[in-house]
């Protein structure tokens, strides 16, 4: 028995792609696309989901997809016109289908019958109201199996004269006789009357006819099934002894028929059939985008499916290669260049190849942001419906590519930002009209690559941020002192401060702000930055700047005590060597640095990680970094070793989490450097991050790590 479970994985993977494609098509239709190939593509996706579901006996998915498919079949054949209602129905059906698939995949339960009303609506739209659930099931591949077999053997008489050219089409009568024989006792009589004289014989033609007597317990279906492929163009009759005819092609027996029938289909009924066929061919050919090979839409056609784990391994190995290369490079000094110019030249080549190898490997994991952008139109539609506002979503730069690991983490923040733009940015309909704005608000989602980073913007044409109110809340929440002097931009960016959006009154603010700190933290975890700019009355723009990948990072390499750390370049504002008078002590903040007319809290890494070696150091350097939105801290280090692209390694696999450390990397000399999580360091300030007294259970001590 075939083990169906083995195909689950490949099916759900296929479904993921098909649902993605289907959603894109539905969105395109919603945007007003009317191209046949969009509808055709949607049909194909549903069709394939249904096909796989049938094969794997996922009955609910199959039955539901069948109804969904029927609608698109009607639409693609032009029998039903797509209208806004049908589009909404399709989107609803899409959600349901995705839910059913997800439930099947996770083994979770969706209440039986919860898809029924959508199924009914689909059937109604298709005009298949009468179709019973039984037919659904049959269509979804739940054959009513087990036709009762007669216990006693039955004798069938079969007369069979294959079409003379049946061999030419690959139908070998001999195989059919063999299959008959497998059913029971078979007596074969060959009829050689049709044989022409030897010199007229066409070796590819069939001249023989046969009479069979088959004694079998197999049912009539099993017997006639043998002839399934040939019954239409051969002379065939199957009878049981009691005279019941279970198959007759109407051509009365076996003999006296010209052996070359079916060769001249040019006139009469045959001609009519041909015309009908041509029509059918045309419609099928239209649905078969054979001729569109050059169009830009090649979904899976030229791709290879590779397990992400393998790609990750490859990325890691290339990372190691880059490190190995820098190790080699450390041994290349000027003297070597002079004595071995050829070697130095080869090494330069090596560097170029290594870099392009790294780029190519990273490109494997890159995905267009379209994969997440495509989910947003539905979100916007739903939110607009909920809030009673009219909102249009514009997207730009969907084909911009980012590493898959970044894409995965980008989705939630984007949802959040768009939700905010609609909830708090776009004004209600009446208000917009009163202001003389177009009644329909616009949210624009765009992506572009700028240098080595990706910039994603969410803008709206709503009323912008109420700076006074934001400032007021920030003061109330003790986030800023009442007399703090802040620029407009700085005030706007206060909404990213942790704690800001927990304010009760926030949902009433006529600005935005709910949970923006969540956005900020997530983006920062990705090594990115968030900022907001707003123009009162005209709208706001939130800008995310992200690295292309999470696997490598530009960092500043610093030393403090015996440890080497990496500070993400994205966070660094400035590095400086302070004059003594610039450093002071504040009662509640400890050591501070006077930096651009502000006091910046200082964190000494030796103190923070409890790695103090006791030797006081006068030549302190301070790296000022942006820890939280707009809030800077100064990290005290002893030496700056350089700036490098580092390969990020997770520590959590081998060590339990260390507060303040985001990961590690291996340096050119083989030593481990720790990547700082400046957000956490900023929050904890001078408290010892890893002092033995404050250790959480299971937490690793830094010394253990680098010992």
């Amino acid at each position, binding site marked *: 028995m075939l083990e169906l479970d083995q195909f689950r994985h490949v099916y759900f993977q296929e479904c993921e792609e098909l649902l993605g494609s289907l959603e894109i098509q539905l969105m395109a239709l919603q945007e007003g696309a009317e191209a046949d190939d969009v509808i055709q593509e949607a049909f194909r996706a549903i069709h394939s989901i249904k096909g796989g579901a*049938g094969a794997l006996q996922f009955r609910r998915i199959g039955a539901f997809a069948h109804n969904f498919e029927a609608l698109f079949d009607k639409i693609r054949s032009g029998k039903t016109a797509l209208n806004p209602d049908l589009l909404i129905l399709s989107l609803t059906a899409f959600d349901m289908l995705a839910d059913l698939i997800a439930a099947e995949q996770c083994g979770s339960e969706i209440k039986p019958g919860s898809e029924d009303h959508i199924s009914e609506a689909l059937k109604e739209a298709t005009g298949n109201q009468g179709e019973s659930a039984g037919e659904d099931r049959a269509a979804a591949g739940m054959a009513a199996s087990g036709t009762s077999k007669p216990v006693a053997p039955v004798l069938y008489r079969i007369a069979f004269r294959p079409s003379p050219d049946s061999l030419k089409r690959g139908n070998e009568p001999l195989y059919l006789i063999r*299959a008959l024989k497998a059913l029971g006792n078979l007596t074969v009589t060959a009829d050689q009357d049709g044989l022409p004289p030897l010199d007229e014989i066409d070796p590819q033609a069939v001249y023989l006819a046969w009479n069979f007597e088959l004694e079998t317990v197999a049912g009539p279906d099993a017997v006639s099934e043998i002839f399934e492929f040939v019954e239409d163009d051969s002379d065939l009759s199957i009878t049981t002894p009691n005279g019941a005819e279970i198959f007759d092609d109407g051509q009365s027996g076996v003999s006296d028929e010209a052996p070359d029938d079916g060769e001249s289909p040019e006139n009469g009924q045959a001609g009519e059939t041909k015309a009908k066929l041509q029509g059918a061919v045309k419609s099928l050919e239209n649905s078969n985008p054979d001729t569109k090979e050059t169009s830009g839409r090649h979904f899976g056609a030229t791709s290879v499916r590779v397990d992400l784990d393998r790609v990750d391994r490859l990325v890691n190995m290339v990372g190691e290669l880059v490190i190995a290369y820098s190790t080699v490079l450390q041994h290349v000094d000027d003297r070597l260049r002079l004595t071995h110019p050829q070697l130095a030249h080869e090494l330069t080549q090596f560097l170029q190849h290594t870099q392009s190898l790294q780029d190519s490997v990273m490109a494997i994991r890159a995905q267009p942001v379209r994969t997440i952008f495509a989910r947003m139109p539905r979100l916007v539609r739903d939110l607009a419906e909920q809030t009673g506002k009219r909102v249009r979503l514009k997207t730009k730069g969907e084909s911009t590519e980012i590493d898959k690991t970044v894409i995965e983490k980008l989705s939630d923040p984007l949802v959040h930002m768009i939700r905010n733009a609609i909830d708090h940015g776009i004004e209600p309909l009446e208000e917009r009209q009163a202001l003389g704005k177009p009644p329909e608000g616009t949210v624009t989602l765009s992506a572009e690559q700028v240098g080595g980073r990706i910039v994603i913007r969410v803008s709206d044409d709503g009323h912008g941020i109420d700076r006074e109110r934001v400032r007021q809340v920030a003061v109330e929440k003790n986030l800023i002192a009442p007399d703090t002097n802040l620029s407009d931009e700085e005030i706007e960016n206060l909404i990213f401060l942790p704690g800001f959006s927990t304010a009760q009154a926030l949902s009433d603010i006529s600005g935005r702000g709910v949970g923006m700190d969540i956005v900020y933290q997530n983006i920062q975890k990705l090594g990115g930055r968030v900022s907001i700019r707003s123009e009162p009355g005209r709208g706001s723009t939130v800008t995310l700047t992200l690295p292309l990948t999470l696997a490598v990072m530009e960092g500043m390499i610093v030393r403090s005590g015996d440890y080497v750390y990496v500070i993400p370049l994205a966070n660094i504002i400035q590095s400086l060597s302070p004059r003594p008078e610039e450093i002071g002590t504040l009662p509640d903040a400890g050591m501070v640095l006077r930096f651009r007319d502000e006091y910046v809290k200082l964190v000494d890494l030796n103190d923070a990680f409890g790695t103090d070696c006791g030797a006081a150091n006068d030549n302190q350097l301070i790296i000022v970094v942006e820890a939280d939105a707009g809030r800077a801290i100064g990290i005290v280090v002893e030496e700056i070793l350089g700036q490098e692209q580092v390969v990020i390694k997770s520590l959590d696999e081998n060590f339990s989490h260390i507060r303040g450390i985001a990961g590690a990397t291996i340096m050119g000399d083989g030593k481990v450097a720790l990547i700082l999580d400046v957000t956490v360091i900023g929050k904890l300030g001078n408290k010892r991050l890893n002092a033995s007294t404050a250790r959480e259970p299971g937490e690793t001590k830094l010394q253990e790590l680098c010992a």
Partner: protein
Amino acid sequence: MTRRVLAVDDSPTIRSMMDVILTEAGYEVLSAENGRDGLGLLDVFSFDLIITDLNMHVMGGLSFIRHIRELKRYESVPVLVVTTEGSEEIKELGRSYGATGWITKPFEPEKFLGAVNRVCPIEEPKAESG
């Protein structure tokens, strides 16, 4: 003599099912996800049977069959069409392009093998030995 089958379908699920069913039955299976790739394989290998889906990207089943039949080597090699509906119209259409027979999706493994067996049985049956 091993029988080699080319299975062409754009659904990875269906492809892998055909692959497993046929391989377990003793066939050697190569697969492709569209007609164009299928033609590429026909060029390089020789096949005793071709099974193809109809509705595919790049090159659909009907064009694929037409191309197959234009190749001298494959003039009379059996071609089975995999269809979902199994409507007479589709069957007739397939036949007019030169298909040998059809298999209706979703297929039960036994039925699938039954159809395959009728056009390309795995081996010459041994002479009756009583």
